[in-house]
């Protein structure tokens, strides 16, 4: 995989420092993701995973250091182009009004469609494709607000898939999902990555999912990258005890046991 990756990283954080008010959340992080990579970001609560994602997707201005998107500083990339390059699965939010699922997913086409005339036939096709791929065709006409948290999460993933960006970023995409849908979403990410060449970056809490479905796992602790490599390297038993402070036997990793 790294052999075919071009020299320019899809997205790269260099000496990135991020903070809110007086508090430093990310402290000199280095992270480079090649096009076509599939990467899981793990770490204990408060390690700064979400802040790192926010800075890397251009929403949060770093205090120091830079984020480069395909070699260009992310703050120089125009908004629409940024949205066409990086799709971020949004947090599960409450909608103020009743809205059919298909119309919610169609919002993923906002960065592509012409601003005044709205959805073109190609956009509608992309929306239908995303709905089908996530497997929520049976929900298309349902009111978003009647859905369970898990179903809503699938819809929001569909929004990002409809966005059809070469880089897909997910922040804990499986929080509200049952085990069957967790695996479905992981398999979808693998499929998007391997078949479409989408670069996937996912924050995950479940180390077993990270180890099983991701060839590269980055461990973040207290705002620093403390591990970066294959799950076999970064999720070793002693590392888990050190970073997460739990008995590694409780985690039962597919690779950790080896």
């Amino acid at each position, binding site marked *: 995989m790294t052999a075919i990756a071009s020299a320019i990283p899809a997205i790269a954080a260099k000496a990135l420092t991020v903070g809110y008010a007086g508090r430093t959340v990310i402290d000199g992080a280095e992270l480079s993701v090649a096009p076509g990579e599939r990467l899981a970001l793990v770490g204990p609560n408060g390690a700064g995973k979400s802040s790192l994602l926010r800075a890397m997707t251009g929403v949060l201005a770093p205090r120091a250091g830079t984020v480069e998107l395909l070699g260009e500083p992310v703050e120089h990339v125009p908004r629409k182009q940024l949205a*066409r390059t990086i799709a971020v699965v949004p947090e599960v939010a409450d*909608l103020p009004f009743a809205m059919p699922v298909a119309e919610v997913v169609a919002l993923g086409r906002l960065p592509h469609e012409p601003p005044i005339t709205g959805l073109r036939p190609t956009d509608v096709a992309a929306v239908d494709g995303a709905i089908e791929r996530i497997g929520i065709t049976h929900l298309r006409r349902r009111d978003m607000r009647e859905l369970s948290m898990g179903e809503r999460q699938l819809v929001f993933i569909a929004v990002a898939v409809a966005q059809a960006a070469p880089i897909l970023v997910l922040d804990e995409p499986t929080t509200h999902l049952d085990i069957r849908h967790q695996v479905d979403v992981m398999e979808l990410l693998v499929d998007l990555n391997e078949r479409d060449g989408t670069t996937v970056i996912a924050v995950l809490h479940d180390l077993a999912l990270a180890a099983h479905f991701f060839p590269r796992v980055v461990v973040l602790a207290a705002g620093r990258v403390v591990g970066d490599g294959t799950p076999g390297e970064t999720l070793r038993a002693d590392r888990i005890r050190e970073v997460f402070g739990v008995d590694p036997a409780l985690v039962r990793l597919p690779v950790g046991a080896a």
Partner: protein
Amino acid sequence: MAAGALSRDVEAGGLAAWVRARPLVVGAVAVAALLLTLVLGVGLGSVRVAPAETFAVIFSRLFGIDIGVTVSPATDVIVWDLRLPRVLTAMLIGCALAVAGATFQGLLRNPLADPYVLGTASGAAVGAAIAVLLPVQLVVVEFGLLHGLAFVGALASAWLVFRLGGTGGAGGLTRLLLTGYAVGSVLAAVLTMAMYVSGVELRQIFSFLLGGLGGSSWVRLVVAAPLIIGSSVLIMARGRSLDGMLLGDAAAGHLGIDVSRERGVLLALASMATAAAVAISGLIGFVGLVVPHVVRLLVGPAAHRVLPISAIAGAALLSAADLGARLVGDVPVGVVMALLGAPFFLFLLHRSRSGYEL
């Protein structure tokens, strides 16, 4: 019982789905209602005017076309100088309030928002009260101090709320709403004080608060129309941003929307439409709250359907309410709107509990 509930659901779903798939039908019905209120609004009153006469006057005055119906000079004056400006003003105000209401509800992600949510109503009322109390009579081509200060007061309070309430940050929308409430409360206190000291002028302040279209004229209409139609069109052109912001600020940002700029622009446009409406008609409630909700029930929440259909439906509703107000002896249209609007809104809320969400 379960079967009964189920079949009712299916029925409601069937009709609702049929309507939702046909926004053009809803739009056509709204346009028909608008034309009907135009004909009735001009036709009914102490002197009846036939629809043909109405159109004859409109066509001959507006386009210089004679459609072959003879109209007496008296009827011509009644239609052109008295009733038509009033009916058209009602339509314009209804359009402004419905579009502004739909915009504020979407922008603030709050179904209870109405055009006055940024303190525009209190601001306009304080402006009007000051104009009434000032011992100055200033009239420039049919616009008195009252219109001017009401307009300025509405815009100033919206601007103040926006500046104090900020735009970004976590909980930004709640802060904006609470700021609107706080500024509105201060202005309401100022208004109460003004009314307390107003003495014989109290009636004039009251008539502004109640809202009315008795003072409609071509000049006022022609001045307010570009502001209202212009802001409505510009809001509609930004409809997709409004849709995207329904997902919340963070998600909208990731979809390429400059959330703080779009919010600022849309709040300014909606406040402009509201201020122009309030300046010529006083405070008219419920149009801006109810119409967007009813339209969303019928065609779903997408802005490119909600905004234009709300504009037409708001225009039809307010001109119908004004006709009612005029026929029962010129009571303020704000009173008619509240008397009809509030129970209807309660009915909608009740329905929403039995399955159909607003």
